[in-house]
């Protein structure tokens, strides 16, 4: 039987049901012409700003500076330079550490907060809480960095003033390698936790109330209902968010760049800041493109692995 053709269960003969895929392309295009028309601007944006610039990947294999009028092919030389650099590998290690913890924290805190908000029964209070926790998302990272630099100042910062009341010596949080990542994670959560709950709040509205009522009748406590009913119900959403976050794991830049300083480069330098230094500050486009390409390839590999694991564990993934 040809693909896309199904036997009719109601008949014993070879009655064929035609699917959309059987129809000629022209017919299908005409049928959905208005949808395609609406999609056209989006497609153009993707084409112009995402796909056509991909041609620039070739720069990763060339010696290219702002004054190059022709591309000088150097093969894998830029990659050799990168892979020989201990600073690059340090950046890779930092990226993986910072981003991995970020993903875990993001998932757990956002899901937890969404569950807590879901439990709020007073409508106006619930809406107020939601609105307030979304606000930090709209503050730029530069402003956030300024705020926290002041709050965490060892000389006159609020945090150290409070610690001082308990006899703790001032801590220079943002210039101390041991504290810097912890501060980054805390600040990142402060900024992103509210916005991150939106998708889970939407998922929670689809949780089957009947199942929750059944669990209640069966004597399940509130915590047991969350653990055994609510979380399994929203787990497909958690999985989708996890895989999408994984695709962005190596992209972390803004928070690191604005909070970084020379005293903590050992623990804060990430691939994106490395690429920025080479590409933007130093105009070495070849090496920075090579580093960017390396980052993209690793991201794709991570997403494919996560998707395969998801298929194995849950029987479904988000990619084809």
């Amino acid at each position, binding site marked *: 039987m040809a693909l896309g053709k199904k036997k009719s269960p109601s008949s014993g003969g070879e009655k064929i049901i035609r699917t959309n895929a059987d129809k000629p392309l022209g017919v299908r295009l005409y049928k959905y012409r208005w949808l395609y028309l609406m999609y056209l601007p989006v497609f153009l944006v993707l084409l112009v700003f995402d796909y056509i610039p991909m041609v620039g990947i070739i720069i990763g294999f060339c010696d290219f500076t*702002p004054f190059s009028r022709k591309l000088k092919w150097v093969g894998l030389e830029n990659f050799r330079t990168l892979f020989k650099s201990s600073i690059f590998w340090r950046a890779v290690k930092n990226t993986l550490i910072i981003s991995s913890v970020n993903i875990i924290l993001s998932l757990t805190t956002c899901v937890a907060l969404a569950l807590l908000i879901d439990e709020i029964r007073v409508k106006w209070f619930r809406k107020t809480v939601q609105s307030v926790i979304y606000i930090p998302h709209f503050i730029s990272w530069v402003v956030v960095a300024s705020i926290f630099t002041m709050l965490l100042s060892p*000389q006159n910062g609020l945090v150290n003033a409070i610690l001082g009341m308990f006899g703790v010596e001032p801590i220079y949080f943002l210039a101390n390698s041991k504290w810097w990542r912890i501060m980054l994670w805390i600040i990142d959560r402060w900024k992103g936790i509210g916005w991150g709950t939106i998708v889970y709040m939407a998922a929670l509205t689809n949780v089957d109330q009947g199942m929750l009522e059944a669990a209640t009748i069966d004597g399940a406590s509130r915590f047991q209902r969350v653990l055994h009913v609510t979380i399994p119900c929203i787990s497909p959403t958690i999985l989708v968010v996890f895989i999408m976050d994984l695709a962005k794991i190596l992209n972390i830049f803004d928070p690191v760049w604005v909070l970084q300083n020379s005293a903590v480069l050992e623990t804060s330098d990430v691939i994106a800041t490395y690429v920025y230094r080479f590409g933007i500050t*130093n105009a070495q486009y070849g090496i920075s493109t090579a580093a960017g390409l390396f980052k993209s390839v690793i991201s794709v590999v991570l997403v494919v692995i996560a998707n395969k694991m998801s298929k194995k564990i849950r029987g479904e993934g988000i990619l084809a």
Partner: protein
Amino acid sequence: MKKSIICILLAVVLALSLVACGEKTGGNTTNGGAGNNTSAGNGETAGNNETPTVEKPDSISWWTHSGLNEEDYVQEWDAAFEELVGVDLKHTQVSNNEYATLLDTAFTSGTEPNVFDLSSEQRLTYFASQGGVADLTDLVKASGIYDRVDPAVWEAIAIDGRIYGVPTEIPSGAETYVRQDWLDRLNMDVPTNYDEFITMLRAFRDDIEECTVPLTVPGFKSAMNLPEFYWDAESDFTYVDGKWVDGMQQPNFKDAMQRLHDAYAEGLIDMEAVTNTTSACRDKWYSGGAGVFNYWGGKWGDTLTTNLKANFPEAEVTGIPAIDETYYRYSAFNVYCIDGMLSDEEVAQVFEYFFKVIFDGKEGSALYYAGVEGLHHNTDENGYMTFAPMKTNPDNNFQSVWGTPWMNVVAFEEPEKFPQPSEIVTTTLDTLAASATFKTNTPVSETLNKITADLTSVREETIAKIVMGDISVDEGMEQYYAKAKELGVDQVLAEMNGQG
């Protein structure tokens, strides 16, 4: 049908949005200017009244990233230039913080301006080595500009004997400002050597109640901003006994690190130096908590005093001479360059109708340095110019336009008629002139072009860790030597010394 109409309308709106975005981006790049703007014109005479030997271009594109605020009559200035020269000036003001990046990007996309400025240190060398700037040697010499400049200046900015840019000002230098009123309260004199300097900082820390930071500074890497601790050490490549060396691998650098480490541990240097920006340091100075701040001389001496006094009227500021063990440092010259991608004919056109105008020493220079009569400056009946109040801040007068008149390099015909500096500006400039040294041009090194980003971060990281006590001086320097070797600093030095 209704759905179809809605779909079409939505699609049209989205498509128009996209087109609008595209136009906006395109507009910016167009403003960047291009070599093609310099097409032949009608051959009228230039503003300097000399008979031109080159044809007048239709337009000249020019980027600035400092000088006047846009609201301070920039449009009027551009119009005055166009009226004087008869050339369409495509003037784009670029954010100072992003200038280097935007210029690189403009070159990459072929939308660079005809005229732009570069630091004569590493940027000019890099651009010259890549053909990004035109060789102006013959034009400068033929124009007479060469003879109106101190030969030492040409020597300082020349690369392999060739001139790639003309400086508009003598470079800024940094000097150390001290709270004179605190010294008076402590019955102390201005320090003249390292021991006295440290004693002063300790006295500020211990005996001045409002002192929160004895000395504030943005970062530890710049010898220019911490001369009292660096002495003659440098954290960059430096010229010693006829050859280029890595300043951080010199014996005097370890001593400098030890001095910085000890002072930081004692609480004499701002604890937050590593996260300080220059504006954060200025704020600490203006808020009256800092006793010592090394910053630009000249008009900044005036600004630092005025703003501090606005908050603390009894405050007094003095710019101290360099202590015995050290000297002040000038930053590198900033030079005006012409796009190296232009043809020789186009370069000559831009030189004739821009450089020869602003460096004519007469009305062109007056326009460049003192601005538009009645807006930026006023002229008395004897032809003496004084700066007018700023539009954006009427309480203050302009102190410069695109260049500061009292810091000009190409001599004016009647310098006394240009606006003159205030007393404190003259004092700080004299202090600098007494002990400051010019920066020597770094020679071309292809390897350095490639490793600059990594090398700079390694240097900053090493210095910060040593000063803040994360590692000992010896340990830190050993780590740096290993990293420098890995990055290829030996090869850089070989290339700089002509052995690469």
